[in-house]
């Protein structure tokens, strides 16, 4: 089994055995008669799952149900384990299991809370290396949701059973048609499964899920509960880099990657001491913000004199809340799209106000608000409003320039060296945490270059002419990429470390060579490769830390620099 594509917990996996291979997500067909298909369910009683010619019995006479409080033993054969819910965690699952089959998934269909709790529990128990198959739940309207929760394999039993009752299952809901709808249901299920695969390969399964969830109240509930109760589970699989995506529904504001951004900002952002003026700016459609026409216009009004180093720019936006300027190249600030009509939903408004209040509470001498929407800031603090009509109108821009000059009058602006260095601290803290940021930015280390291409330079304390580059912030990467010297600091601190078996890396580091990995590592993060306490390389994590340990195949770290 090899993971070919990921989108949060959703995955596309290639599974092969005995010369046959299938790609997930996959709907296992139900067959009443003998079939030579590589993967199918042989119907009748009991059902059997046929995988490349080997059959596993799925049913027993006694069918305990998910809320019976009576767990049952898994029945395993040749790498396939069949299990009835409830899953308690104490079930024996052999280490050589390749496919875990939940045979009574139907009982989760109308119970979103239990569905989230049980599917997360099963996946956590079996780890990433096992295909998770849930029978009896797949229908066109929910297949994407369950795939997004981490289910790899489905079956067509529900589409058949409901089709026989004259119920037509479509991605948008259900229709009573009065005649057998099996064939049409199966066709739609197949088509939806293909879509789920495409969205997953594009890393954008969440957007399909956001579209499908409103098909029924229980699907909405499923996604809500998953976003809340399953946050830690989902978050672990969210990359820290990525391409453009849209937040078109209310629930999409609660995407785990967005929630993580807000959480991480709250944890790591501390106002640099020299920043004495808070400037609130509106977001732009173009990302990163600083490349947009409007933000270039703002820049022309901000960077008119050395007082600009006193100004902490914060972009106010939904669904992220607040983005300090120096983080605007980071995911997801550099990637989201949202419909803009000037209306704010209560949830967006509350979130923005809460985050602004936290930033304001860090203490500024004055606040300049260059937002057109007073409702976002009303009552938060005393501030000067500079927008008249359009934020980029000449009047607004003149107001902005004048306001900044006025509020900084009499203040001693720090040099650009200090400003860049401390802003880099904000960047490093967001990426690695405050402790690591402080380790990297010791007394001999500073940043050079023009934003956002900031280089991290460390000078030799005994010979100032000896300079070593530790890393560089680039918008292309959306974070700081480290050199081997920079990576050594992380290795020393035991952060973002991947421990490999002892061999010479050729190209990339594969999962099979990973012994241990920092569970903090997310896809897209910097990963430092270490062997027996010695640094061997640095690169980009292509799996989460726990996946590197749990998977046997696939690239774990795309190596950028390695020790020769």
């Amino acid at each position, binding site marked *: 089994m090899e993971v070919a594509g990921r989108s949060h917990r959703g995955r596309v996996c290639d599974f092969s055995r005995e010369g046959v291979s299938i790609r997930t997500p996959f709907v296992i067909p139900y067959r009443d008669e003998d079939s030579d298909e590589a993967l199918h369910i042989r119907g009748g009683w009991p059902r059997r799952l046929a995988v490349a010619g080997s059959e596993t019995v799925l049913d027993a006479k006694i*069918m305990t149900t998910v809320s019976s409080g009576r767990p049952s033993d898994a029945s395993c054969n040749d790498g396939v384990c069949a299990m009835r819910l409830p899953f308690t965690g104490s079930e024996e699952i052999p280490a050589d299991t390749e496919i875990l089959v939940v045979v009574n998934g139907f*009982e989760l269909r*109308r119970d979103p809370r239990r569905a989230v709790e049980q599917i997360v529990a099963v996946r956590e128990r079996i780890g990433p290396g096992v295909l998770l198959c849930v029978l009896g739940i797949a229908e066109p309207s929910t297949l994407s949701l369950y795939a997004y929760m981490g289910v790899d394999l489905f079956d067509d039993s529900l589409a058949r059973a409901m089709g026989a*009752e004259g*119920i037509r299952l479509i991605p948008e*809901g259900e229709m*009573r048609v009065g005649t057998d709808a099996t064939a049409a249901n199966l066709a739609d299920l197949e088509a939806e499964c293909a879509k789920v695969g495409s969205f997953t390969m594009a890393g954008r399964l969440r957007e399909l899920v956001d579209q499908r969830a409103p098909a*029924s109240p229980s699907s909405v509930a499923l996604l809500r509960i998953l976003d809340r109760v399953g946050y830690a589970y989902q978050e672990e699989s969210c990359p820290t880099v990525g391409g453009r995506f849209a937040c078109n529904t209310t629930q999409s504001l609660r995407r785990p990657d967005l929630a993580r951004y807000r959480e991480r900002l709250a944890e790591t952002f501390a106002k640099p001491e020299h920043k004495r003026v808070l400037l609130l700016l509106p977001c732009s459609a173009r990302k990163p913000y600083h490349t947009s026409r409007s933000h270039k216009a703002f820049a022309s009004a901000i960077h008119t004199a050395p007082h600009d180093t006193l100004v902490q720019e914060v972009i106010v936006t939904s669904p992220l809340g607040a983005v300090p300027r120096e983080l605007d190249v980071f995911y997801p600030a550099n990637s989201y799209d949202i419909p803009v009509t000037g209306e704010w939903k209560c949830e967006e408004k509350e979130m923005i106000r809460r985050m602004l209040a936290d930033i304001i509470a860090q203490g500024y001498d004055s606040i300049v608000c260059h937002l057109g929407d007073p409702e976002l800031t009303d009552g938060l603090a005393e501030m000067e409003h500079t927008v008249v009509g359009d934020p980029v109108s000449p009047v607004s821009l003149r107001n902005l320039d004048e306001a900044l000059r006025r509020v900084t009058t009499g203040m001693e602006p720090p040099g650009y060296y200090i400003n860049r260095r401390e802003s880099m601290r904000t960047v490093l803290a967001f990426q690695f945490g405050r402790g690591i940021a402080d380790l990297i930015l010791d007394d001999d280390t500073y940043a050079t270059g023009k934003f956002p291409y900031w280089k991290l330079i460390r000078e030799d304390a005994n010979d100032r002419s000896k300079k070593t580059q530790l890393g560089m912030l680039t918008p292309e990467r959306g974070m700081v990429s480290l050199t081997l010297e920079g990576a050594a600091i992380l290795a020393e601190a035991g952060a973002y470390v991947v421990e490999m078996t002892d061999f010479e890396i050729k190209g990339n580091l594969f999962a099979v060579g990973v012994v241990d990995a920092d569970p903090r590592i997310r896809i897209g993060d910097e990963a430092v490769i270490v062997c027996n306490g010695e640094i061997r390389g640095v690169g980009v994590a292509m799996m989460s830390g726990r996946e590197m340990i749990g998977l046997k195949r696939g690239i774990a770290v795309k190596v950028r620099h390695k020790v020769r």
Partner: protein
Amino acid sequence: MKERRSPSELEALWKEKDLSAGRTVDAMVVIMRTRGCSWAATGGCTMCGYRRASVKEVSADDLGRQIDQALAAYEGEPFVKIYTSGSFLDDDEVPPAVRERIFGEFAACERILVESRPEFVTPERLATLPRTVTLALGLESSDPEVLKRSVNKGFTPEDSRRAGLAAKEAGLTVRTYLLLKPPFLTEGAAIADTVESALFADGFSDEISINPLNIQNGTLAERLWRRGELRTPWLWSLVEVLRTLSDRVGARLMSSPSGGGSQRGAHNCGKCDKAVLAAVERFSLTQDPEDLDVACGCAADWKRYIDAERLLGTPADLERGFDNELAIGKGDSS
């Protein structure tokens, strides 16, 4: 609020028709209020709500007064059935002296039916019973796994068989109760289970009475039913079982489904339930499988239901599970 139940009053008493010595006779049914089933005290069976029909302390005097009430209502019916919410042969529930008085009072009856768990069926106790006694045994299923995991019966099918054979040995007649569709069995599995169980029971039973599951208060079955994870059996399944067995067992087959036709009892579509129940009642008296010939369009729904359970691998209530008031076309009159 329910009135506090008095330990000196009967739980219930009614009259009905039943068979005795091959003919239909008047029968009196007496449900005594006792301290309850010894097994219920340790958790009890998954479908049995009778612990609610018992009270904490019932003295021999209380039981005596209950007998007085039964005698006051007695009009010489040839058949008397005396049930407790547990075992009539459990000395802690019904003291030997009380049993003795009952048999004395109803000595003229041609048939007296009492019920007991097999652990109380000992040769010593059997020796104290008149030959007019029919011993009723709640076998439920001949599958030890079903008894253990679905019913939580606390004894094995072998225990029942031993008790049944001992009763026959003592010259009594035996009626065996089977439970059609205990929790965790699909409709299809339940039919097969009851058929097999009847063949097993036939070896030591004069009568086999099939009780389709009904949902009683405070039981595991009720909890599962409320969650949609259980459907009480279709009446078609009962008909199927009786039809299959009619030429395969020597014992008399009967069924009188509690709550039949309601959501909590065995039911079909609602339109044919009365007719099917009447057919079952007729069959119970005549043993003629032709009496089971009833037709309704929902028989096809029942067949599809069994197929769907098999497809989905669940005993959950698929009728409720598939129902969706928001489905397009749901409100159409077509």
